[in-house]
């Protein structure tokens, strides 16, 4: 049933569901657990039908405790399992922060490679769904700053499938960030895993004037922006990072050296955010190719706003176009952050 169809149009949620099912099918060490991932199928239905199909020994609900979920996943992985756990919403992963930071990320190194923890933590993240407080955080920077973790995030249903399969197969722990506002967006999914490796960025749209660097929920927004930018006469290249840690210097550097201008986009607050790393390292490597400082278009430096105000917080096409416009095409000096 799973191998016949090679290519299908699926929502991201369905693609993730399919990736979990195929991984459970392919490897009996894979376990899926967390809050409400059993009979309910998860609040976003990503685990829909899995406990019925694979049994409650392999797909199960846990008591309500995130540190407990990650801590026991670590113990299971020590004993040869490959746990895939869900944090119901991004902000609800914070109780697990110690287990993630002090153990999950570090145990391989601390034990000189003797303990391997192939654990995947699925975290629905980001806003744009009208969620009330604590339901829309973008917490990637907390994880990318923690050596030992891989952090990946799909921008398309196709990547959702492939990256999740790759994450589950990875010998390293992976924080798998799912852009919740894109759960219901559809796109083609190939099941042969023929896409680029998990740690590679991809050029989603080639262009020659400016590089737009995006990931997760902002990939679609970046592509929209690129389309709109043609009207202004800008040929925008869109790079989808896919892997936030490690960072694919090669792909990004090649693009920015070619275009000479770049904008990084993310939903999370800008200050000390992931975009800062992108700016810093790309600037180090491309300094003499840059016509203007790399700008960031990000969420403001505020707690995530209530639903009725989130549109003002989230980077959108206009704000990104504005930033592109400030890339000193006529050599005037203006900074986005003032």
């Amino acid at each position, binding site marked *: 049933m799973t191998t016949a169809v090679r290519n299908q149009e699926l929502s991201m949620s369905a693609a993730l569901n399919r990736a979990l099912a195929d991984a459970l099918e392919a490897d009996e060490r894979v376990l899926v657990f967390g809050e409400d991932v059993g009979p309910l199928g998860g609040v976003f239905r990503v685990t829909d039908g899995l406990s019925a199909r694979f049994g409650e020994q392999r797909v199960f609900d846990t008591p309500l405790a995130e540190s407990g979920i990650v801590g026991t996943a670590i113990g299971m992985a020590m004993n040869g399992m490959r746990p895939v756990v869900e944090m119901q919403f991004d902000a609800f992963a914070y109780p697990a922060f110690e287990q993630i930071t002090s153990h999950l990320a570090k145990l391989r190194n601390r034990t000189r490679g003797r303990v391997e923890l192939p654990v995947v933590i699925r975290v629905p993240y980001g806003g744009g769904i009208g969620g*009330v407080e604590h339901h829309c955080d973008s917490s990637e920077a907390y994880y990318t700053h923690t050596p030992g973790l891989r952090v990946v995030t799909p921008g398309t249903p196709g990547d959702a499938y492939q990256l999740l399969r790759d994450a589950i197969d990875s010998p390293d722990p992976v924080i798998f960030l799912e852009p919740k506002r894109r759960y219901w967006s559809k796109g083609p999914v190939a099941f042969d895993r023929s896409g680029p490796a998990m740690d590679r960025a991809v050029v989603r749209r080639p262009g020659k004037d400016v590089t737009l660097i995006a990931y997760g929920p902002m990939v679609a927004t970046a592509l929209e922006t690129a389309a709109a930018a043609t009207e202004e006469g800008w040929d925008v290249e869109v790079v989808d990072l896919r892997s936030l840690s490690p960072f694919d210097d090669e792909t990004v550097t090649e693009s920015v050296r070619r275009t000479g201008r770049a904008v990084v986009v993310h939903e999370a607050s800008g200050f000390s955010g992931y975009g800062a790393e992108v700016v810093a390292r790309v600037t180090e490597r491309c300094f003499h190719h840059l016509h203007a400082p790399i700008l960031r278009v990000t969420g403001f*430096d505020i707690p995530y706003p209530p639903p009725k105000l989130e549109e003002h917080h989230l980077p959108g096409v206009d704000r990104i176009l504005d930033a592109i416009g400030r890339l000193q095409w006529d050599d005037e000096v203006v900074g986005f952050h003032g």
Partner: protein
Amino acid sequence: MSVTGLSARERSLLPTDLPLALLDKNGIPVDDPALEMPADEVLLELHRRIVIGRRFDTQATALTRQGRLAVYPSSRGQEACEVGSVLALREQDWLFPTYRDSVALVTRGVDPVQTLTLLQGGWHLGYDPYEHKVGPQCTPLATNTLHAVGLAHAARLKGEDTVALVLLGDGATSEGDTHEALNFAAVWKAPVVFLVQNNGYAISVPMSKQSAAPSLAHKGIGYGVPSYLIDGNDPAAVYATVREAIAAAAAGGGPALIEARTYRIEAHTNADDAGRYRDSEEVAAWLDRDPLDRIERYLSTRGLLDDERRAEIQAEAEDFAASVREGMNAEPELDPADLFAHVYAQPTKALREQAAMLAEELAS
């Protein structure tokens, strides 16, 4: 392992085997109750507030269907807890509610429109916590238990006669914070009452997957906290127990843990599909134990409530619901500039710049 007998200390900390109650499901007083029946005026007020609370709740659920509320977690079926516990509070006491406890809030006197502001998507909190001594409705599970302990301990340090009542669900008892809060409260003898509304589910997860303990109230003894297991659909029992626990805490007796057995009649929220994890017979059995029915029957039997009074209260509830509808019809006034207010006491330079940028965008 063998148990050599139960010490007096243990005896004073363990809950009863069966939930304490004052009224059975038909509203008939139980024999030889371990709790004191509240005065008639209290019972009448419990009834009145439950009627109003329930009407408020159904109104809020209706508002989700009309798109006026982003989401609403109903407490239908849990009104004995919502109302009974709040009426047991004294004015100087604090309430630390969760997202499910909107009915508790309006019972405490919080403006209903301000109560719903969060769920409407207008601002994270619509009311002033200090006005009615009500903490923000808390979403990160169990985290509010620690706030309650801290506030209550500070009150004691200041010599204030304040007790904090914190509400939490069965699922929230599994979080580490609940453990830390019970322990801090016990060690500090902080005047805090923990009321666990055990409504059988944490979203879809049933109690059997949440805990293997004889009862959640059995957790108390592990902290040295006296514990009560009560019938959470009996408004009189909830009121009497919380009242007793508050009096003890105020007298310096330290915290108490109450597990109230109740049931969430609606789905987790309007966005949830409860049919995926429970069947309608189960719901029907609990409808049969309805808290409103129960107190209404008791009061009617006692002759304290007649049709006329019931109609009056119903009318009051309708007025209340109408005011909620009206209040929620108005779009909340929101100024995007407020995004940058109150991040810090004074906006930083960076925030002022960001605010200016947004203002410019909006002006163009």
